[in-house]
């Protein structure tokens, strides 16, 4: 890890509109939970607030914004060249940037899901689920999105397509897709940590753990590999 790269990456994330939206997403989730509880006077539906809105929308969006914030724009406009024309290993650059994206996304996701769980009057088991799925989901999504941001100029769109098409659309109708779904893996980890049913029990825990490790490793390595081959295109 390289502290200088991490410091610059953090500034890229929190600076400008990106930082505002990143902060707004978990705050909105908490607000939604608090509002629902105030209106109905009863604890909110955990499946709806924590899983359907929190894990399925807020976590991937936060991860997408964070992962693309640390890498996408710099590769797009070529200014990553200022970081790369130094003797720092490109894999270290990728790992440092990933660490910042994953750390910020995990912090915001956990904050949002945990806050929503508490504001919605849910039991302690759901606090555990919020921490495990929010943190795990954010880190895994970031690994995927960091690799996508490094691989294509359209990392943001590629990430959105993954979430909307593979996870939301195909995953909903074709059960097999849960095995390539970050959300399902995060849910499985959450299930095992707390005594709740998130309807992913048919996925082996071993599979979930190994898939997480592989995604982390491959995601960061792919981003690093892509940076070792970074090409500065002239305008001609």
């Amino acid at each position: 890890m390289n502290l200088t790269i991490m410091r610059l990456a953090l500034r890229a994330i929190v600076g400008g509109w990106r930082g505002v939206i990143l902060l707004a997403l978990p705050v909105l989730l908490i607000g939604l939970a608090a509002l629902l509880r105030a209106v109905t006077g009863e604890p909110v539906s955990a499946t709806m607030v924590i899983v359907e809105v929190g894990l399925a929308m807020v976590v991937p969006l936060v991860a997408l914004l964070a992962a693309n914030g640390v890498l996408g724009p710099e590769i797009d406009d070529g200014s990553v060249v200022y970081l790369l024309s130094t003797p720092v290993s490109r894999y270290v650059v990728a790992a440092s940037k990933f660490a910042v994206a994953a750390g910020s996304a995990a912090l915001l996701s956990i904050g949002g899901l945990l806050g929503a769980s508490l504001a919605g009057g849910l039991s302690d088991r759901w606090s555990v689920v919020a921490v495990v799925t929010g943190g795990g989901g954010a880190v895994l999504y970031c690994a995927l999105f960091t690799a996508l941001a490094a691989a294509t100029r359209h990392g943001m769109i590629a990430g959105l397509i993954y979430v909307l098409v593979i996870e939301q659309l195909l995953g909903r109708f074709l059960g097999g897709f849960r095995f390539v779904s970050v959300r399902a893996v995060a849910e499985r980890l959450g299930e095992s940590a707390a005594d709740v049913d998130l309807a992913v029990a048919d996925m082996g825990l071993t599979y979930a753990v190994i898939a997480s490790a592989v995604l982390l490793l491959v995601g960061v390595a792919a981003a690093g590999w892509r940076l070792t081959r970074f090409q500065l295109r002239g305008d001609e």
Partner: protein
Amino acid sequence: MTDLTLTDVSRWYGNVVAVNDVTMTIGPGVTGLLGPNGAGKSTLIAMMAGFLAPSSGEVRLGEQRVWRNVTAYRDLGLVPEREVSFAYLTGRQFVQASAELHRLRDTRAATARALAEVDLTDAADRAISTYSKGMRQRAKLASALVHEPQVLLLDEPFNGVDPRQRMHLMDLLTRMGEAGRTVLFSSHILEEVEQIARQIEVVVAGRHAASGDFGAIRRLMTDRPSHYLVRSTDDRALAAALMARPGVRSVALGRVGTGDAITVEVTDTGEFTHALPVLARRAGITVREIAPSDESLESVFTYLVQS
């Protein structure tokens, strides 16, 4: 260690050849990479800086390969044409980050020295977004030389920089060249290059068209037949008088389409420019217009490639 060597380097994108079989050695001192826009200068610099793989051939810095070799950056500094997108940083933070990434022992001192070298100390604590083009250029330069590299590559460093700042930058590069560093910069303006470069490498349409000191390049570029378009009150009489001059190779009456001018092909530009007004006055002809018809840099380059 200080020599940058290109051996049979080519680079193509699909069917388009951007750089065609270039072999050159860039040694200590200031070298200008001269060529019209789109000639492949940026592609060449990208390959020299390890940010583009040659399709064939090899680029070496001293003994080491530069493509996919980050240790080469210990001896190499790059000032890309690209703007700094870290505009929210101050100049000092930007240069300091570079010093840290190079793992220098005393990053603060190195940063202060680099900022002083480019004369940016006064503005160092302002955000880069408030800088003028020339100041941004200097901030990029400070960041590229904070680790005192032996080789410095600059892609169009004078583009869009006002004349005073340009002078300043030129002084700086000259000093670095005199200090024994290898400095290479690209430009499409001959005057710019010959002011500071000892050695000039000319690139046209991806090919290495000429190489030499500025005197040799200048002669190559000026000692060539050039064409002038002249309009006067009596084109035919003027044409006859001009044709008698030794420095005039041919005169053509009538401009295509309009037929109201003459085109003069001149082998000795100096003689022609002196002779024309004298001839005209003696014959009682008024010259209404005289314009070089092929003085654009592109035509100069085209001539160079053909010869």
